């Protein structure tokens, strides 16, 4: 381990979740960007960012690599009523499109993102398709 997960998590008032297949650092959203900043300074680079709709909450999940073979998952949980979190764009410029996609598909607002607009869907599209509450036409008919 090149990064001491416990220490990093503790420093950002989070915890380490080792139940899954990969270790995950779960932090409150207030320290989301600080966590990324600290990891970035330790030489960690990012791989992916996405969201998972858990019904009442939306998890923002980022995958980062501490070394070529070492995978860490970063998580923060946002309540449905307030889907805002700090953007990681200032830390990793490549987060630009990933955060736009998360905004497009889940409606999560990333504070500090330079150009938060829809990326895959067209501008007039209503709703956030990857939310569980967004039903496909076939489902609407069935229900």
């Amino acid at each position: 381990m090149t990064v001491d997960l416990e220490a990093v998590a503790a420093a950002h008032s989070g915890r380490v979740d080792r139940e899954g297949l990969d270790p995950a650092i779960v932090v409150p959203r207030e320290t989301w960007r600080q966590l990324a900043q600290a990891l970035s300074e330790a030489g960690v680079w990012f791989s992916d960012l996405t969201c998972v709709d858990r019904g009442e909450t939306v998890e923002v999940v980022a995958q980062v690599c501490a070394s070529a073979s070492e995978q860490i998952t970063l998580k923060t949980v946002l309540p449905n009523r307030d889907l805002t979190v700090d953007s990681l764009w200032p830390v990793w410029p490549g987060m630009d499109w990933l955060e736009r996609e998360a905004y497009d598909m889940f409606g999560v607002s990333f504070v500090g993102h330079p150009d938060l607009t829809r990326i895959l869907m067209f501008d007039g599209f209503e709703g956030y398709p990857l939310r569980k509450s967004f039903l496909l036409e076939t489902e609407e008919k069935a229900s």
Partner: protein
Amino acid sequence: MGLIENAERPNFILTTIDTLLRWGRSHSLWWCNAGSACCSLEFAAMGGARYDMDRIGSGLVRASPRQSDVLLIPGPITKKMAPIFVRVYNQMPDPKWVIAMGSCAISGGAFRESYSMTRGADTVLPVDVYVPGCPVRPEALFYGLLKLRARVRGTSNIGLAHREPIYVPPDLPPEWEAEVREFLGEHEAC
């Protein structure tokens, strides 16, 4: 009254010119490839040395829709892309034809129920030839092209507005193979 009756009556000069024009058109169907998805690869393979659609005079894929005759839709039409396809179609000069290539372009295919898809090309454009497959084999597209060619050659100018679509069968009937193989068999370089 008289004019219309005269137009209906076969006239030697007019019919000769008409036959000539139809011959010319059928041998020179140039593509407008609005290449979108998987099927455009098989379309590209059709331009390659093995299939070589240039042998029947359709080898030119014009970049500008103004100079093309056949609009090929080789993939799904998403809601975001549909207006652009319509625009490209409108930019093409008459007479023009549309080939829907693959199940996505025919009906939406594997993505039919998605929130971002139209249910097939015929919801936005008048389609002349439906070539099924996912993805379409080059032979199937070749067959569709041959059918379109025969149609173009047989359609008088007067009947252009009224066209029945051509449905290429999804299975391989023996005559299907024979017809395409006859074209493809003559040059087995690779």
